[in-house]
């Protein structure tokens, strides 16, 4: 009679049909930036090693940072770090009970996004100029 069983019931989880609140978007971005950082740490360590290895290495790093590609990658890693950090601070504040309300959630998310954008832009300026 029944072509399907309980075990293969469909699940409605097409994320393109579900409106995620701003707070949810900052949250998933926090996770994504964290995973990027997991790889990014390698790049940062490599830069640290190079910078501390010798005077030559230190200068080599400076030189490398004039290459747009390297600068871009470093900017990417630092942006992920900055975002992860700022969104993380929001988490710590929420742990202290700050902004844990229906109105507070989108407000907190907005602040995180604006603060991150400013920081990321500033990082760009700092790296390129």
């Amino acid at each position, binding site marked *: 009679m029944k072509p399907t069983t309980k075990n293969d019931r469909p699940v409605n989880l097409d994320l393109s049909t579900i409106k995620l609140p701003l707070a949810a978007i900052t949250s998933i971005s926090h996770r994504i930036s*964290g*995973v990027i950082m*997991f790889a990014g*740490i*390698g790049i940062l360590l490599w830069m*640290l*090693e190079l910078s*501390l290895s010798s005077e030559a290495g230190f200068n080599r790093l400076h030189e490398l940072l004039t290459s747009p590609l390297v600068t871009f990658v470093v900017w990417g890693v630092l942006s992920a770090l900055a975002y992860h*950090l700022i969104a993380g601070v929001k988490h710590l504040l929420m742990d202290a009970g700050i902004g844990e309300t229906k109105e507070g959630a989108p407000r907190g998310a907005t602040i995180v996004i604006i603060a991150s954008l400013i920081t990321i832009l500033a990082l760009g300026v700092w790296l390129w100029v």
Partner: protein
Amino acid sequence: MGMKNMQVSSVTNFGRSGLSDWLIQRVSAVILLLYIVCHSAIILSTPEMSYAQWRELFAGTTMRIFSLLTLLALCAHAWIGMWTVATDYLTRRMMGSKATLVRLVFLVGCIAVLAIYFIWCVIILWSV
């Protein structure tokens, strides 16, 4: 009913409990935050830093301890984060019966990477 006293646990969780994981995640976050703020402040306040100054910065005992502490915090923080990510997405529910193996491989990979990061970083710091 049947699940009344169901305990949830996982063998790949190194922490004692969700509470300790949660605490470690917070404490390590604060350490990382302090370290990053510290270094940012130093770098920004020293626009034309020389190699000597840079090296000097890492050679001090206090900074060495701080760096090491941050390294430990980083490893713990990253591990708990990656473990959480793995147990959210690399599950039987998401990918069927092969999930356990995939997750195990992924987590072993994470441990390997973190071990490499740790050793590498210790070598960097102690070679200063």
